[in-house]
């Protein structure tokens, strides 16, 4: 029930096929309490201390344990490393949830409003899946979209995040001022080495969306050579606003606006929210 090492956990998972590996249990217990889930067995991952931290790997990558809690990701040392992920973790919920909810659980649950998911998508992270006798690497986006899902007996152990050393922003719109489920969220990072902008929109679709055309377009509008100069305007405000519209139009298709009256208005409002979030995220990243 409470294996102390990764190997034990993987063996236990192989031995009991119906068992559910559980770390923070916040999503799992909500389903159990509501009667949607009756686990045959639980394998607690809380005692696997190696998964609760992170480490550097060959310079440019941070390897994050799946058991890293949101509260831990919010701390300043981690925020200096991956600020967008720290912002997402900080806004993910109240302290009671953040103290136990983990990065791996957020990925495994793959809720549409999962706050770390757009950040991991935009950072193009890869997940390490362990099973008895081996591991494999899967891009987060493949895992989330079901292109290459978690197979029975596999355990999400590590998340590899390339470090960019460039501005990265996470913004989230919620229904109230306290911590709440996102109605829309935007993660945006700059990749100055490739002169690229990457953007992901969360909570508006079952999985985080990447508006690739808008990214490519706006990368051409940015004055990359002026980066670092004092008071330089890197992008025309009109272009930033147009980027917001572009992103919103890509993520909420025109078809959604023509729905029945209420749904159409809702989609229009959501599109405006996404547009504003994307414009602000770009503005903050380029400041």
């Amino acid at each position, binding site marked *: *029930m*409470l*294996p102390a090492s990764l190997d*034990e956990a993987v*063996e*236990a998972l192989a*031995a*009991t096929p*119906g068992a*559910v590996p*559980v770390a*923070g*249990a*916040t999503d799992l*217990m*909500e*389903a*159990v*309490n509501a009667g949607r*889930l*009756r*686990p*045959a*067995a*639980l394998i*607690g991952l*809380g005692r696997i201390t190696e998964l609760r931290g992170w480490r550097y790997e060959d310079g440019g990558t941070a390897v994050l344990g799946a058991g890293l809690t949101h509260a831990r990701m919010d701390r*300043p040392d981690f925020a200096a490393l991956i600020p967008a992920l720290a*912002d997402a973790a*900080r*806004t993910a919920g*109240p*302290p*009671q*949830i953040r*103290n*136990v909810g983990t990065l791996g*659980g957020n990925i*495994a649950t793959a809720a549409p409003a999962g706050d770390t998911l757009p950040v991991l998508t935009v950072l193009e992270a890869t997940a390490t899946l362990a099973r008895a006798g081996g591991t494999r690497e899967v891009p987060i986006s493949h895992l989330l979209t079901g292109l290459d899902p*978690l197979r029975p007996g*596999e*355990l*999400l152990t590590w998340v590899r995040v390339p470090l960019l050393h460039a501005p990265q922003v996470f*913004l*989230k*719109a*919620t229904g109230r*001022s*306290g*911590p709440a489920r*996102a109605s829309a969220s935007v993660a945006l990072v700059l990749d100055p080495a490739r002169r690229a902008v990457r953007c992901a929109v969360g909570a508006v679709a079952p999985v985080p969306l990447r508006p690739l055309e808008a990214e490519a377009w706006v990368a051409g509008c940015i004055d990359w050579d002026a980066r670092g100069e004092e008071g330089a305007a890197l992008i025309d*405000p009109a272009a*930033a606003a147009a980027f917001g519209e572009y992103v919103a139009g890509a993520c909420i298709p025109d078809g959604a606006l023509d729905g029945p009256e209420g749904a159409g208005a809702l989609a229009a409002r959501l599109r405006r*929210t996404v547009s*504003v979030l994307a*414009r*602000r995220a770009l*503005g*903050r990243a380029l*400041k």
Partner: protein
Amino acid sequence: MTTTDPIDSGAIDPGTVDPGRLGSGPVEADPRGPGPLDPLGFSPVEFGGDGRPCASYILRVNGFERPVTDAWIGESLLYVLRERLGLAGAKDGCEQGECGACSVLVDGQLVAGCLVPAALASDSEIATVEGLSAGGAASDVQQALADSGAVQCGYCTPGLAVAVHDLLQRNHRPSEVEARQALCGNLCRCTGYRGVLAAVQAVAEARGTEEETGEDAAVAEPAAEPVAGAPETTEPLAAPVEDTGIAQPSATQPVAPQPVPPVSAQVAADLPPAGEMPLYADSEAWVEAEALYPAEPTTAGTGVGIDYGTVTVHQTGIYEPYPGYTATPAHGTPYDSSYESQSSYEAPYDAAYDTGYGQSHYEATPAHGTAADGPVYDGAPVHGTPYIPTPAHGTAYAETAAGYEGYDGTTPAHGIHLQPSAGGTSISEDDHA
């Protein structure tokens, strides 16, 4: 992690009503005996009478080992505490982790008890609201909550007591913003949180006073003596010891709200320590809300009357004693007439203080017919004034004639850092962007 697996297969019937979750007694012993032992030697998974997976384990709650036998593995810690162990302090509000009424401490971490599988907490140290104080008396946090009017229906109170306890363990001098952020997971629909925040400040001040008087008595006693102007020169220990006796809350005595510590001693303690800055305090865009009412001499320092002026001082960290200021004398010191001749008291103090005690800031309601101070209604516009219609609901602000440029109607989400504005105090489009 594969929460979508067909887990309901096999012997587990999803439609089975779980008697263990309806009744409070332990599930009857399994007639078929214990199930197969886990091959790795973990605690055995058994199957109850109706085929549900069960487990027996021992919980360490408030320092006591409490055995739990044949409990369904899906039972939450909250359920086990309340129904099996009889610790009904934590309340069952939403079972979704939204309300915080079930807050307990597991290994020193504040968690929602309803979202912790009890079977997985078996080797953790669990602390509930019942364990906040020994001997059944109210702890200082609980007493302060009661004194501050933070209890109405009381359903959220155990969770709030645990959350406030946890907050003050980690942060001895929380600002109002920090307190609000720490308590944002505890919903209270009665009191409006004002009382809770006042209780946080009351306990923080009481504990701070306790610490400082303890230190004074032990270390800084000669330094404190001339400032306090202790009347008894033959008994130098008298004043500090007396203070300590007043400040230390005992377990059986309700904690009276403590006076604020002397200003000279308060300065260092009140500066927010590095790394614990309130979230928005370093941003120019963060505007402190004005205190709702001026701090009155009678309520200042009790911590019960909401003295947010003091809190603002904590946050900004610009609290400096002006030259020539001497600390407030210790409680019980005979009144010194030299106070009246000190001219340095006048400048920074609110003039209202000079009106003396007993007089409040209350102004009588003016007689009927008195002209109001506020915005005066100056009649309907003259005929022919062009009418500017109010824009339709949902119109973007920028499109209106007198629109607030730059505001998009979207407030940044909770916890997002506001960026300090680059171009001075005005918030332009790019500062928000």
